[in-house]
């Protein structure tokens, strides 16, 4: 397949403007004749749905929560980037663009990233107008913090609840459009298939999670804004319901999957303490602004951290990266923590943790200062671990947090299926091999508020849409297949619960496709995953019925897709014989353990094409060219 990224002509600063001028518009009076399905109500989905409805389109919106406001975006803590340069510290659109391309280790598309930086300022304007209570200075103007490896202060925040506040802003706009009648919202619905008619995305089949009924929805275009697939690892910072099903079904219907192996592992999470744990909890990365990371110099040192004298501590990030210190990008901080623990310097009962110490900051600025800034995080840490981090250092360990990979989209955010768009974390687009802090919220809202409202119009205005109703044979056939799968799951009646099997898959992924990967491990994973999948089909137990509210069945349906996507993630990781960003292949590192890219061979997006059950995926490549930010070795020393 030839991939056409549809990057507009012209200098990078003018591409988006040119494009907006050149693409077709739907006449204002005609917009109401079109219907768009938006699956997902996180930042990307709710901003898209609201903005499209405001323009006059009919929007059908679905999500698996009862309310749009409960989407996973609600959990984002730290902040959202925009180069407003309110701090007068040298920020600009160009610098944000540059930082993002470099931070992504030169595996993102320049034109997309530039556009993202360009519209990010409008996002802040929009959110403030909606009443999002961003943190402010005493003069009443907006505050900024520096975040996640940036040298300028460009992050806007609403305490430790930025995602919540941004989502509630978008949810307000969304609710207003429900009130106006232009959004029809269906909660507790899970999309289980995409419907193509005459090679156009024309609808979806969803399960009503309360009644179990399968329902068909028809439209002229479909947008997936269904979030990331990090829960493939079982333990992640993702919400429990976050899953891969929507994008996976679209993938199996022909949408190419971009860079599936690019996973972000976040450095500041509360370590796993035992087997019953159902998820990992992130603590905002902002903690690294004031906390110092260290391990004992002596391996296996079990002394109380307070009894370990200064000269027997290794502040390894400060030692290795004197200019960035504790603020190195996430991939570097995570990998170094793992390395320290692998070498036996880890702390805590499992040895899988490093210290994040606030003693110096407390001595310097006082406890109240720390309390004001981080109080809620210290409370959360206390509730989970029963430890007081004002007195003893926190223990942290990296956890799966974000998936940079996702459905391949062109500059218009359209997948390889005509009329199917993907926004937010569900697409592969802007973060390359590593996402910088505070940029996912930015991307989700950029996609939803400022990009899709233009680009979808071009598609709708340029194509014809034969009349289709929900009684079309494609919906029936799809429903029949879904019924078969569900009945199969219910009838296995084996011995293992969905979680038990999913947990084992997660372990394989952490062990062989996690922070550091190598050929032997990845090959091993490619043997183990199909075995586990087979075991799932033989031995899973799913109680209850198909026609009722059945949480175990929901989990089982999602798990099936994890077993498949895991295999693609590993396949992708194995083929990429280089290290870049969050993808560290142990065979490819510099002498001092930094990721070693191979730009000659791998400066491309790997876009995988599904060929059918049991068959190997086809690899398609979208070459990446860097005209403006010349690839260099990332150095944070």
């Amino acid at each position, binding site marked *: 397949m030839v991939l056409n990224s549809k990057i507009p002509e012209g200098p990078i600063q003018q591409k988006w403007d040119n494009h907006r001028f050149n693409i077709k518009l739907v006449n204002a009076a005609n917009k109401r004749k079109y219907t768009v399905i938006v699956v997902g109500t996180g930042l990307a989905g709710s901003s898209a749905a609201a903005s499209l409805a405001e323009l006059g389109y009919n929007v059908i919106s679905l999500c698996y929560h009862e309310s749009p406001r409960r989407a996973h975006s*609600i959990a984002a803590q730290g902040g959202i980037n925009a180069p407003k340069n309110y701090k007068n510290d040298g920020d600009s659109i160009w610098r944000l663009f540059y930082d993002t391309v470099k931070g992504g280790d030169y595996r993102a598309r320049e034109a997309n990233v530039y556009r993202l930086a360009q519209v990010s300022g409008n996002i802040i304007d929009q959110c403030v107008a909606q*009443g999002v209570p961003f943190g402010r200075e005493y003069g009443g103007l907006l505050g900024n913090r520096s975040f996640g490896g940036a040298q300028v202060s460009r992050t806007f925040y609403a305490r430790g609840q930025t995602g919540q506040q941004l989502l509630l802003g978008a949810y307000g706009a969304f609710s207003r459009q429900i009130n106006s009648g232009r959004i029809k919202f269906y909660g507790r619905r899970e999309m289980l298939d995409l419907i193509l008619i005459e090679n156009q995305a024309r609808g979806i089949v969803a399960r009503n999670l309360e009644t179990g009924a399968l329902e068909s929805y028809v439209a002229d275009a479909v947008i997936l804004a269904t979030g990331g697939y990090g829960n493939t690892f079982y333990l992640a910072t993702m919400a429990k319901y976050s899953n891969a099903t929507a994008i996976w079904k679209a993938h199996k219907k022909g949408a190419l999957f971009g860079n599936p192996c690019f996973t972000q592992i976040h450095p500041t999470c509360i370590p796993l303490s035992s087997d019953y744990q159902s998820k990992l909890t992130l603590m905002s990365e902002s903690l690294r602004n004031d906390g110092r990371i260290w391990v004992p110099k002596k391996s296996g040192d079990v002394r109380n951290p307070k009894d370990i004298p200064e000269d027997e501590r290794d502040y390894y990030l400060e030692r290795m990266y004197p200019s960035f210190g504790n603020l190195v990008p996430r991939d570097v901080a995570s990998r170094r923590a793992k390395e320290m623990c692998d070498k036996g310097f880890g702390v805590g009962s499992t040895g899988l943790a490093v210290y994040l110490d606030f003693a110096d900051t407390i001595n310097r600025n006082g406890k109240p200062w720390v309390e004001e800034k981080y109080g809620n995080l210290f409370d959360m840490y206390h509730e989970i671990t029963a430890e007081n981090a004002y007195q003893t250092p926190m223990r942290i360990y990296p956890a799966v947090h974000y998936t940079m990979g996702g459905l391949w989209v062109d500059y218009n955010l359209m997948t390889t299926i005509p009329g199917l768009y993907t926004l937010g974390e569900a697409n592969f687009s802007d973060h390359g091999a590593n996402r910088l802090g505070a940029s996912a919220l930015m991307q989700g809202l950029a996609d939803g508020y400022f990009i899709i409202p233009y680009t979808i119009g071009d598609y709708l205005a340029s194509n014809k849409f034969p009349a289709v109703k929900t009684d079309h044979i494609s919906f029936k056939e799809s429903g029949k297949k879904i019924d078969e799968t569900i009945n199969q799951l219910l009838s296995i009646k084996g011995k293992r619960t969905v979680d038990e099997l999913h947990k084992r898959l997660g372990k394989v992924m952490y062990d062989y496709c996690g922070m550091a990967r190598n050929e032997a491990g990845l090959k091993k994973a490619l043997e183990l995953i199909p075995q586990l999948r087979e075991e799932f089909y033989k031995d899973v137990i799913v109680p209850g019925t198909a026609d009722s509210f*059945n949480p*175990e069945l929901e989990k089982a349906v999602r798990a099936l897709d994890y077993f498949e996507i895991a295999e693609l993630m590993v396949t992708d990781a194995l083929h990429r014989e280089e290290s870049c960003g969050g993808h560290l292949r142990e065979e490819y590192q510099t002498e001092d353990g930094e990721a070693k890219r191979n730009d000659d061979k791998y400066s491309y997006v790997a876009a995988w094409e599904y060929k059918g059950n049991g068959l190997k995926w086809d690899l398609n490549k979208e070459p990446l060219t860097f005209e403006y930010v010349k690839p260099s070795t990332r150095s944070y020393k």
Partner: protein
Amino acid sequence: MNFKLKIWRQYDRNSKGKFAVYNVTDISPDMSFLEMLDAVNRNLAKKSEDVIAFDHDCREGICGSCGLYIDGRAHGPQRGVTTCELRMRHFKDGGTIIVEPWHSKAFPVIKDLVVDRTAFERIIQAGGYISVDTGSAPEASSLPVPKANAEEAMDAAACIGCGACVAACKNSSAMLFMSAKVSQLALLPQGDPERKRRVQKMVETMDREGFGLCSNTYACEQECPKKISVSHIARMNREFIRAKLF
């Protein structure tokens, strides 16, 4: 730790529910309440019995999905935490724990411990927002907001919409939930143009949805996992009177 659980089981909206008793053993004090229920469900699933349905998602106290009425308290015995954040170390080993869904006419039970809270949605849809179309916003810093107001607006905006306030109230009033939104927007200059209409529409909708009246017992503030203050109810009342009078 070991517990005896009395849990509300109800097949669907139309069935009658009843309590069922489960004994759980080997619970670690560090487990969250939901992880304890996961353990119960694992045992049920292994016996091919219908698992206990409860709402949850983020499991870190922010999405507002979870919400159980535990031993007669919304979100259980600890102040300022949601059910998903609550740890088993706060319960007495060997004790009995009673687990029920939120009780309110406005929140019908869907299954077991899951209730339908869409009445909250309709209150927000009636006016809990600022009407600003995408693209029409002025430059963000053109409108300074005093820090104190911004902070208080944020206190109100911290509501997670879980419904504990309604569950805790003997009248099933949604005043705390609604006032948090009214108050947030009333504290910000952006919210000013629509302030009258907003409060009137939202109050109308709340009444229609079958929530009760507020009789100032302040149980809502006590049980709110985000410690939202009843001072927002006072502000909302002022907003409401103002809207009527002027």
